[in-house]
C-alpha cells in the first residue's frame, strides 16, 4: 500500500470503525508527509472521537428503538431529550462561563450527525435549542448570556427561534410582527409560524420590525429580542401535524400586546436582521450534519437489507443495479460529510464560512432526500410499508430542503458568494 493509502485507510477506519489509528510505521511516515500536506488533516482528536462515541452509543441504543413510536404518536420525546441533556450532548455551544462546554461548531456537528442517525425528529428538537441560543451567544451582553444561557445548563429547558411568519419565510425582510417602544418596554404584536419547540420553549429569540418606515433598509429596520415564553400575550397555537419529524413540536405563535423589557433587546434597536442572519453561519453546518446522519442511516439500512434479501438466486446486493445504487448513496454521504466538516472547521477557525455553510446545507439536504428515496427503492414493496424503517426516512428528509434556508435560497447565496469572489 502506498503511504497515502495508509492515511486514507486510517481516516476511514477512524471515522466509522473507531480503530486505534494508523499503524506505527504509517504514523512515522505521516510526520514526514505532514510538511507537504500543509497541516490539512482528516484526523479527529481523541476527545472528538470519544464525544462521537457517546453520541453514537446513545443514538443507537436509546433513540433508534424509541423513534418509531414517537413518529406514530407525535408525542414530544422529552425523556430522550432529558437523557441527551444529562449526557452533555445538548447545548454544547454555550460558553463555559455560563455553565456550558464552549464546544466549537465542528464538535457539535459530530454529535448532531450521530443523533440524526437515530431520529431526525429528536435531533431537530435538540438542534432548535442551538438555533434559538445562537443569537444570544453571538450578540448577547454578559447579563443576557448569564440569565438565558445559564438556565439552559441548570435544567433541561428548551428555547426557540421565532422569525418565520405565515406570510414571510425566505423573505425575512418581509416579516410584519411589530415592536413599538413604549417607555422602558417594547409592545409586540404579530404572528409567527412553523416555530420548532414553539409549544415547549422556556424563551424565544424573536425578530420583529421596529422601524415602520417601509423605505428603511432591512439592516436597520429589525430588532432581536429575548422573550420569556410565559409573558402575557404569548399564545402558542396547536401542534402542527407534519409529513415527517413528527415528534418535533412545530407551532404558530401569536403575540398580542406582549411587553418586553428593553433589557431583553440584543445589541440595540435595528441590529436584529444581522444577528438573525449571523446565527445561520453557525447553525447551517449542524443542519447539514443532521441531513448527513439521515443519509447514513438510509445507506446502512439499505445495505443491511440488500445483504439479506434474495432474488433471482442471489442476494440483491450482488445485482449490479442495487450495488450501483448503494455506491451512489455512499458517494453522496461521504461528500456531504466532508462538506459540513469543512463549513464547520472554517467558522471554528474564525473565518466567515457563508459560502461553505450554504454549499454543505444545500448538498446535504438534497442527498438526504435522494438517499432516503433510494433506500425505499432497495427495500422494494417492504420499503413502502410502515413496518420497515425507511419510509420514515423519506418523510423526515424532505424538510432538510426547506428549513434553515430553502434549497433555492442556498443557491442564491452560493451564486452571490461565488460571483462576488470572481469579481474581486
Amino acid at each position, binding site marked *: 500500500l502506498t503511504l497515502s493509502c495508509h492515511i486514507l485507510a486510517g481516516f476511514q477506519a477512524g471515522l466509522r470503525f473507531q*480503530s486505534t489509528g494508523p499503524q506505527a510505521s504509517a504514523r512515522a511516515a505521516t510526520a514526514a508527509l505532514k510538511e507537504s500536506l500543509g497541516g490539512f488533516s482528516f484526523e479527529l482528536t481523541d476527545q472528538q472521537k470519544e464525544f462521537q462515541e*457517546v453520541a453514537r452509543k*446513545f443514538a443507537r441504543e436509546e433513540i433508534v428503538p424509541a423513534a418509531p413510536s414517537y413518529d406514530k404518536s407525535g408525542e414530544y420525546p422529552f425523556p430522550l431529550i432529558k437523557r441527551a441533556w444529562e449526557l452533555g450532548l445538548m447545548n454544547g455551544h454555550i460558553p463555559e462561563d455560563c455553565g456550558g462546554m464552549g464546544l466549537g461548531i465542528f464538535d457539535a456537528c459530530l454529535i448532531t450527525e450521530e443523533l440524526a442517525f437515530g431520529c431526525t425528529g429528536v435531533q431537530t428538537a435538540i438542534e432548535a435549542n442551538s438555533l434559538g441560543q445562537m443569537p444570544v451567544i453571538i450578540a448577547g451582553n454578559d447579563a443576557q448570556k448569564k440569565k438565558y444561557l445559564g438556565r439552559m445548563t441548570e435544567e433541561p429547558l428548551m428555547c426557540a427561534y421565532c422569525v418565520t411568519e405565515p406570510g414571510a419565510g425566505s423573505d425575512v425582510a418581509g416579516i410584519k410582527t411589530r415592536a413599538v417602544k413604549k417607555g422602558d418596554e417594547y409592545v409586540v404584536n404579530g404572528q409567527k409560524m412553523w416555530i420548532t419547540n414553539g409549544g415547549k420553549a422556556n424563551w424565544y429569540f424573536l425578530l420583529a420590525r421596529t422601524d415602520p418606515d417601509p423605505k428603511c433598509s432591512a439592516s436597520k429596520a429589525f430588532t432581536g429580542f429575548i422573550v420569556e415564553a410565559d409573558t402575557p400575550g404569548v399564545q402558542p397555537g396547536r401542534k402542527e401535524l407534519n409529513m415527517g419529524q413528527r415528534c418535533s413540536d412545530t407551532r404558530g405563535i401569536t403575540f398580542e400586546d406582549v411587553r418586553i423589557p428593553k433589557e431583553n433587546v440584543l445589541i440595540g434597536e435595528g441590529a436584529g436582521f444581522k444577528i438573525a442572519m449571523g446565527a445561520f453561519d453557525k447553525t447551517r453546518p449542524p443542519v447539514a450534519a443532521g441531513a448527513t446522519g439521515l443519509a447514513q442511516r438510509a445507506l446502512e439500512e439499505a445495505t443491511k437489507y440488500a445483504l439479506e434479501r434474495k432474488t433471482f438466486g442471489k442476494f440483491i446486493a450482488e445485482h449490479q443495479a442495487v450495488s450501483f445504487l448503494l455506491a451512489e448513496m455512499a458517494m453522496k454521504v461521504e461528500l456531504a460529510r466532508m462538506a459540513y466538516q469543512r463549513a464547520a472547521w472554517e467558522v471554528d477557525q474564525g473565518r466567515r464560512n457563508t459560502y461553505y455553510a450554504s454549499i454543505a446545507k444545500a448538498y446535504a439536504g438534497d442527498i438526504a432526500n435522494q438517499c432516503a428515496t433510494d433506500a425505499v427503492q432497495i427495500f422494494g414493496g417492504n420499503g413502502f410499508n410502515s413496518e420497515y424503517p425507511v419510509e420514515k426516512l423519506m418523510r423526515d428528509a424532505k424538510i432538510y430542503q426547506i428549513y434553515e434556508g430553502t434549497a433555492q435560497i442556498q443557491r442564491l447565496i452560493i451564486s452571490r458568494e461565488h460571483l462576488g469572489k470572481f469579481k474581486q
Partner: protein
Amino acid sequence: MLPLRFRRVTMSARVLVGVKRVIDYAVKIRVKPDRTGVVTDGVKHSMNPFCEIAVEEAVKLKEKKLVKEVVAVSCGPQQVQETIRTALAMGADRGIHVEVSGKDYETLGPLQVSKIFAALAKKEQADLIILGKQAIDDDCNQTGQMTAALLDWPQGTFASEVTLEADKLKVVREIDGGLETIKIKLPAVVTADLRLNTPRYATLPNIMKAKKKKIVNVKPADLGVDVSSRLEVLKVDEPPQRQSGVKVETVHDLVEKLKEAGRI
C-alpha cells in the same frame, strides 16, 4: 462509635479496578489466515463489558463516600490508555498503565496479570480490588481468583450485589444453584457479574474533565513481575460450521431418529 479498623478502611479506602481493552462485543470476529489468532488490526476495540460494570461499582462506592479513591489499571500497549480514559470519564480518579507490548502482549494471560495486580495492590496499599468476572475475548475467568490467592485475600466472585457492612463486605454471588451470600473481610477481591449494576455513560463534561486526570506509566519489571508466558498457542480455528438439522413430523419420528443417532 465505629471501631478504629472500620474507620481506617473506609475513610482512606482505595479501590483498584482492572479494565481490559478487548475487541468490541458487536464485532464479527475473524480468524487470521495463518491461524495464530484473530484479526485485531483496524477492528473496533472497547472496554470489556464486565470491566465497565466493575468501574461502575467502584465509582458508586466512591459516590456513597464508602471509599476515597478509585484507581483504574490496564495492562497493554499504548492503546489501552483509551480504555483507562474511559474509566476516568466514568469517575475513576487516576489511572495506571502497565506497559506490555509486542510478543509479551500477545501472550499476556491471567497468571501474569494477577501477579501485576498483586504487586500493585501492595504498592498502592489498596483495600479492595474489583475486576470483571471474565474478559469477553478469552473467557478465562481466572484473574480475580488468582489475584486473591497471590495476595492471600478473601474473594467474592460473580458478584451481583456488594454491600459494605462494618469492616466486612457482604457479597451476593450468582452461582449455578441460585444466589449465595457471603461475608468477607477487607482487603478483598471482588469480580463483577452482569447484574451487579448498569454502567453509566461517560458524559461529555466528564470526558473533558478526564483529560486532566493523571495516568502513570509503569513497567512490569518495576513491579518485579516476569510477564513471560508458560503457554504456547498451537492454533486458532473457527468453530465447526453448524450442520443443518432435520425436521420431523411426529413425536414418534423424533424418538426413532434419536434412537438411530444412538442418543437414546
